[in-house]
């Protein structure tokens, strides 16, 4: 029986982790994630989980310890944000290269400099090439659901990869919303017991983790890693199907909203999607066929499916809450690549919005949709990449 609660995104993720009851957890504070691991620490202190925590002295050590723990053979979690994720960067590659299914909520926050504690996607986007699976979440409910599903995805015997569950700092991590919790037992049954794979603590079969591999085999190892990523999408969908049976909530590799017959569309991640949907409704009421695509699985990126979903649209704006300075926004680059093979492609726009927690307002969505509407009729794009909601 689902339980209806009013909780923050951080609280929801902490609760998901409690319900999963992992073996080891790396804990280190960083705004806006702090509160999630703090809550988890109190579950440990109150004996509500069997987890052993490692109260590390940095995020680099947190990920290092998580890698050691996961290689040893067990279920491992941690969580971070922003600079913390940046500090982990080196180790993120090692977690995925060693094929260790560590689960990590990432409470998205801007990167320094200047120092800023508020939400944007610079942190997780900066980690998009680290070999981790990335699931993105619009709200607390999705963050909770994604966290639970992440275990099944990452620990799948064909996959064995670490997973980041992304949720927007403060907007989601600290806002209270109504959501549904599953029963503890339901979650435990859904996730299942941890299945070991080449555990280091198998003392009778001594293994060496982390060899030096030079020109003879490195290229092959990376090819094998690429191959695993190609299998992730189907696993994500299978797990989502099971999760729907349990929760009644349906997940795909992305969500579409009024996109089927749309002439214009916005592609946008996480919490801003909610605001955008409202404005799309307003435009629909005015007779403008607007729609939305919200990626859930960003790594691996579902190129073909995204192209299929957008191919009929006349003009698409990809909205990035991060910038790849000197390039287009990271989400834009993926969507543009996805659309490239199409013979008839939508016209494309890239807008950078909401950096460092700058509010994303309905008026911003309206501005973009109006521009898209004009473009869809004129066939002309004036400025391809542009910041919005910025003072001149």
């Amino acid at each position, binding site marked *: 029986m689902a339980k209806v609660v009013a909780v923050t995104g951080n609280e929801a993720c902490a609760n998901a982790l409690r319900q999963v009851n992992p073996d080891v957890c790396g804990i280190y504070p960083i705004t806006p994630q702090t509160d999630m691991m703090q809550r988890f620490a109190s579950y440990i202190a109150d004996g509500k989980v069997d987890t052993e925590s490692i109260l590390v002295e940095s995020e680099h050590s947190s990920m290092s310890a998580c890698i050691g723990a996961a290689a040893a053979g067990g279920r491992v979690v941690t969580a971070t944000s922003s600079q913390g994720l940046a500090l982990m960067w080196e180790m993120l590659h090692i977690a995925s290269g060693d*094929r260790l299914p560590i689960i990590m909520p990432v409470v998205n926050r801007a990167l320094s400099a200047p120092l800023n504690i508020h939400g944007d996607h610079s942190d997780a986007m900066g980690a998009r090439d680290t070999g981790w699976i990335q699931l993105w979440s619009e709200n607390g409910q999705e963050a909770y659901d994604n966290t639970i599903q992440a275990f099944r995805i990452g620990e799948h015997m064909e996959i064995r990869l670490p997973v980041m569950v992304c949720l927007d700092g403060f907007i989601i991590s600290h806002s209270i919303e109504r959501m549904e919790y599953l029963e503890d037992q339901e979650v435990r049954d859904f996730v299942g017991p941890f299945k070991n794979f*080449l555990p280091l603590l198998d003392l009778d079969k*001594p*293994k060496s*983790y982390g*060899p030096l591999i030079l020109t003879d*085999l490195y290229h*092959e*190892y990376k090819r094998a890693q690429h191959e695993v990523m190609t299998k992730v999408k189907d696993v994500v969908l299978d797990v989502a199907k099971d999760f729907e049976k349990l929760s009644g909530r349906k997940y795909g590799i992305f969500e579409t909203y009024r996109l089927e017959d749309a002439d214009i569309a916005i592609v946008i991640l996480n919490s801003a999607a909610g605001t955008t949907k409202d404005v799309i409704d307003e435009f629909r009421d005015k007779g403008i066929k607007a729609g939305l695509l919200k990626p859930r699985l960003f790594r691996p990126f579902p190129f073909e499916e995204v192209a299929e979903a957008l191919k009929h649209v006349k003009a698409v704006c990809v909205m990035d809450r991060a910038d790849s300075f000197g390039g287009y926004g990271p989400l834009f680059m993926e969507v543009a690549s996805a659309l490239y093979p199409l013979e008839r492609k939508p016209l494309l726009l890239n807008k950078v919005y909401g950096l460092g927690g700058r509010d994303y307002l309905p008026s911003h969505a309206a501005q973009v949709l109006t521009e898209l509407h004009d473009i869809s009729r004129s066939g002309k794009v004036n400025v391809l990449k542009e910041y919005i909601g910025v003072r001149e």
Partner: protein
Amino acid sequence: MKPKGWKDLPPGSVVLEGGSAAKFKTGSWRAFRPIWKDENCIQCLFCWIYCPDMAVKVKDGKRGDFDYDYCKGCGICALECPGKKGQKAIVMTEEGK
């Protein structure tokens, strides 16, 4: 041996066989060859403990010959060898001479 393709690799580059380096012979690195002279050996086993390459064979606590498959010819054993009555039990000779 045919080099492995990407489909043949263990996930995560984990080396599954402990001590497999024994298949890699390092004896060809040697420029100087230690020669063991049993008659001068007092069985102190210093050569064995100080050998960086585990290239001194010892069986049932008794020193045997060098394992030339692995000996890199550093000469630590010869230098540390106390010998008997001023006579070293290990002497270094140039390889190929």
